[in-house]
């Protein structure tokens, strides 16, 4: 269970998070939606300690996150970064199998490669991709490699930052299904950021909408169409006019 209490974060004078309260029970899939630049990525990075919050506490499984507990948390964690964040000095399979080639999960090279190829197949990539370098792939392929890397060591907690942005609709569908599968089959706890309402409906148990540095609305995915919240309605239907300003 991941719990955020009153988390604040500013960059200089720019207030990004202004009191986030959020609970993600174990095994649940939470989808966070919200306009671009509202701090969704920053929110995930606070949980990971990549960005230090100015105020507030974050706990995982009851432990406050500090360097020691975070290390243990990250051992069973996977993340798909918004930009892919693949290591461009390593071939695709070594990116995917990164955890399996060093540290506590280290195993023989050919075994790690076999697992990597299997994970690549799950995200719709052929074995030939394994020996290419990230720079040789299209943006969408890089994203899927990054997804394969996130799930390679069968994590218990996974964050997906815009997993389907930049993918064609068919591939988006494949990825949505895959994420759903990971959550239900492996019982993983997932936080997904997306703008794609199809993804929201496919992936989410709970939906949270971030607006103005706060959680504007949170509820089960079944309630999003009947929430009665003008902000959420505007976002779901992609209307230019409404309480959310188009110029931000």
């Amino acid at each position: 269970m991941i719990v955020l209490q009153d988390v604040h974060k500013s960059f200089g004078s720019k207030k990004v998070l202004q009191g986030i309260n959020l609970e993600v029970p174990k095994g649940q899939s939470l989808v966070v939606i919200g306009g671009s630049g509202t701090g969704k990525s920053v929110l995930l990075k606070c949980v990971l300690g990549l960005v230090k919050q100015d105020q507030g506490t974050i706990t995982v499984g009851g432990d406050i996150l500090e360097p020691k507990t975070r290390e243990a948390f990250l051992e069973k964690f996977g993340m798909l970064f918004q930009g892919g964040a693949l290591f461009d000095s390593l071939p695709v399979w070594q990116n995917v199998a990164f955890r399996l080639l060093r540290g506590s999960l280290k195993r023989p090279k050919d075994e790690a490669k076999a697992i990597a190829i299997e994970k690549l197949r799950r995200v719709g990539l052929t074995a030939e991709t394994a020996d290419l370098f990230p720079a040789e792939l299209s943006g969408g392929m890089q994203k899927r490699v990054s997804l394969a890397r996130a799930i390679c060591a069968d994590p218990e907690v996974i964050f997906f930052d815009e997993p389907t942005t930049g993918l064609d609709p068919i591939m988006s569908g494949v990825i949505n299904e895959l994420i759903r599968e990971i959550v239900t089959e492996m019982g993983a706890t997932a936080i997904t950021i997306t703008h794609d309402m199809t993804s929201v409906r496919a992936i989410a148990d709970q939906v949270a909408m971030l607006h103005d540095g706060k959680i504007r609305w949170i509820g089960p995915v079944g309630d999003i169409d009947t929430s009665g919240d003008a902000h959420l309605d505007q976002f779901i239907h992609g209307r230019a006019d409404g309480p959310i300003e188009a110029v931000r």
Partner: protein
Amino acid sequence: MSIASPLALLGRSVIAMQASVGRVAIFTADAVSHLFRPPFYPREFLQALLQIGWLSLPVVGLTALFTGGALALQIYAGGSRFQAESVVPSIVAIGMVRELGPVLGGLMVAARVASSIAAEIGTMKVTEQIDALTTLSTNPMKYLTLPRLLAATLSVPILVAVGDSIGVFGGYVVGVTRLGFNSATYLENTVSYLETWDVISGLVKGAAFGFIVALMGCYHGMNSDRGAQGVGRATKAAVVSASVLILAANFILTEAFFSA
């Protein structure tokens, strides 16, 4: 106001400098502390050795060759004014080994290596690859910084030693072909006046300069601002600060060796 503002400017830059000295010190302590804490990444270390040491050989060698040749000509020009042409071999050797080998070698490595380390790590930083390392339970300081620091500290002295030899050889070629030295006498004079301490002090400088180069490359790369501009600024800052620090450290080390 017109008097106070330059003072204020000076004050501000002194404070800014102290702050960055503090940050670099913390960065250094963090990096070095990983030397004693597993896991270790020998593969990254070997790769850094190749990049920093082996691939810098041509640049350092050429620099030393031309410098040794020019040095022989200059010392001959100076020495001939008081009939002391015969000092050319020993002064070339001493000048190369104690001063020019390490300093010019260090500066060339700063240009080649500090820039590429800062650009590589800076790009990794702005494309979130450093963040990705952390989420994959790999400490970026341990995985990226320490191997480069170690590789540079160990390989630059070797580069300096090779550069010293090539520089002396450059002086020898000029001495024998242009200045009318007898080959055997030149070599004998080179060796007989050179002391072990001359060589060792030059190598110690090399190690210090190697450390400075990798440290500045990693520090500025890890602290790169966002975007391509950020990486550009980090690269520039790495080369400039490494070069200035090398020259400053050279003075301090020379002074220390001088009084020792």
